[in-house]
């Protein structure tokens, strides 16, 4: 089975990625923010230093003999200045200042690249406009400062990341415990245990899952019970024809004296044994039909021409009906259609019409009427048989139920089959006496 991987690992990975992303974002923001602040502060410093030099240069420059000033601080190496007389004669400069002029002569801030180094320069003139003072600072200083802050921010994250992962792992494990418990419960179940899963300790997120599972369990339980009952019923029903066949065969064997009477008994018993086999075979057919309905019920969306299906089924039954002078009359509009499964509908029609013919006295008629009424399509099969007492109408669709007085030659399954097929087609099955009191009217209304 393909798996989407461990939920725990996924959660941990996602949490860690989120933490790292947020932290890195914060660091990047801090870096750029700090960098901007430093620019302003240090630019201000440059401007201030330049102002001081202007003052000094105007007063003391004549007395200064050396050409460069000493370095006083570690950052001093990165801060340089030049004082140019008239803007082109270098009068004074710091030790680390490059030989060429730091920037153009215009007053203000500028950036220049000298010998591969990036200087931030502030240029200004003294009041008499004789001295050009240029103060510069290596730009890398600013980068270093901002990076320092960023690194200080990242350090604790890097150190605490394994610890964080460990804590998250524990928390996730705890958080997923109800799910693990549920899984264990399902895992340890006996395969035939279909009791509902308990929902009390389950987290809200898995409730729909448990709910679905429980509903599935109930459905399986119901269908298993139905299967078991069906198997038991079927076995019981088959016992009687088998008992009859066996008893008839034994009667035939015992009628062995060779007298005319015994010969007659033997023939009668053997014929009955064959009849018994036919009946058992019919019962088995009907049982198999009933068992096959449900799997077939999945495909009921075909448009079926009910009129022509009915005509076709009637055609197959006519010879049998004619033997007993029973007339089959179809009264249907042309091409009345319903959505369904044609195989199942044919079985439904055959059972209904067979039933009607079976219970009709010789020389009567069976009417089959198909009409459209509002949104429904009605299929009625009306016979002139003895009908079914009102009290038993509700029970005749039960499996193997045969109303009193019926010869036990039917399987007792015909109407159960009809009912099941109607159910699958979301159609309504109604049995009622014919108005004048004799006969049965079975109506299936398709929605």
């Amino acid at each position, binding site marked *: 089975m393909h798996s989407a991987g461990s939920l725990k690992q996924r959660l941990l990975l996602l949490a860690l990625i989120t933490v790292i992303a947020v932290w890195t974002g914060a660091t990047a923001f801090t870096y750029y923010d700090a960098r901007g602040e430093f620019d302003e502060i240090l630019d201000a410093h440059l401007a201030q230093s330049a102002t001081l030099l202007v003052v000094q240069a105007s007063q003391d420059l004549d007395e200064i003999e050396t050409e460069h000033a000493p370095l006083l601080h570690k950052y001093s190496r990165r801060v340089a200045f030049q004082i140019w007389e008239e803007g082109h004669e270098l009068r004074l400069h710091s030790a680390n200042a490059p030989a060429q002029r730091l920037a153009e002569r215009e007053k203000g801030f500028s950036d220049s690249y000298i010998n591969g180094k990036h200087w931030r320069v502030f240029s200004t003139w003294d009041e008499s406009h004789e001295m050009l003072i240029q103060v510069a600072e290596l730009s890398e200083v600013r980068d270093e400062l901002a990076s320092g802050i960023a690194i200080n921010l990242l350090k604790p994250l890097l150190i605490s990341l394994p610890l964080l992962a460990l804590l998250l792992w524990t928390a996730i494990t705890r958080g997923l415990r109800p799910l693990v418990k549920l899984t264990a419960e399902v895992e340890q179940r006996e395969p035939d245990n279909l009791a509902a899963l308990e929902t009390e300790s389950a987290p809200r997120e898995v409730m729909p899952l448990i709910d679905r599972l429980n509903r599935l369990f109930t459905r399986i339980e119901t269908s298993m019970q139905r299967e078991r009952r069906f198997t038991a019923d079927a076995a019981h029903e088959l016992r009687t024809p088998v008992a009859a066949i066996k008893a008839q065969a*034994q009667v035939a064997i015992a009628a062995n004296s060779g007298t005319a009477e015994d010969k007659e008994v033997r023939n009668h018993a053997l014929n009955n044994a064959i009849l018994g086999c036919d009946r058992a075979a019919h019962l088995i057919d009907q049982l198999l039909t009933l068992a096959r309905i449900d799997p077939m019920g999945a495909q009921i969306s075909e448009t079926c021409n009910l009129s022509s299906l009915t005509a076709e089924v009637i055609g197959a039954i006519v010879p049998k009906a004619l033997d007993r002078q029973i007339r089959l009359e179809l009264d249907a509009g042309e091409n009345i259609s319903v959505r369904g499964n044609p195989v199942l509908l044919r079985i439904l029609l055959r059972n209904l019409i067979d039933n009607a013919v079976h219970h009709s006295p010789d020389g009567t008629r069976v009417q089959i009427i198909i009409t459209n009424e509002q949104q429904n399509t009605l299929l009625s099969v009306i016979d002139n048989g003895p009908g079914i007492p009102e009290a038993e109408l509700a029970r005749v669709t039960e499996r193997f139920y045969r109303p009193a007085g019926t010869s*036990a030659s039917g399987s007792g399954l015909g109407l159960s089959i009809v009912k099941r097929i109607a159910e699958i087609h979301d159609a309504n099955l109604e049995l009622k006496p014919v108005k004048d009191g004799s006969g049965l009217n079975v109506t299936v209304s398709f929605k």
Partner: protein
Amino acid sequence: MRILVIEDDALLGDAIQAGLKQASYAVDWIKDGVSADLALGTETYTAVVLDLGLPRLSGLEVLRRLRSLNNPTPVLILTAMDSVDDRIKGLDTGADDYLIKPFDMGELAARLRALVRRANGQSEPVLRVADVELIPASHRVMFREQFIELPAKEFAVLHTLMLNAGKVLSRSKIEEQLYAWGEEVESNAVEVYVHHLRRKFYPELIETIRGVGYLIPLNRNI
């Protein structure tokens, strides 16, 4: 020996009727509970074969009604219901035996013989009066160390009288045990059979009680 078969399945009922006839029983066959209840109330049967799943009135209900009237007729339930619970329920309702479909015709006949024997307070499978021995299972009679062949009806008359040895049975009571419904009862048939039996054995075997009926006396010393 008249048996009532209550079975709603046409083919099975037909077979039981034919099979029991072959075992020399007179058999009445009824297909629903209500008619069975009626028949049991009006006729006397040696034993009853009862199906449980009957239309109109269930087999158990027929049995319950029969026992509530203190009718001791032996009842054998013949059914497809094979669970222990079903059997217990059947026996506790008053059945004497329980046989599950499909069954063996021979076993059904043997169980009915056993029921009849027990109902008449006998433990031996052979009926014996003086030097006449009747073996119901094989339909044979031994008289003075010799087997005697008897036609079915004569056997049935002898069987009925020997089962009730010491009791006077009226002619109609004997007739009742000989003929099922629809069978033509020959006039004076019982007299004729008794006459044949007396000739084949000895005249004193069966005594005539004038105006009452016939009797095989117990413990007659010859």
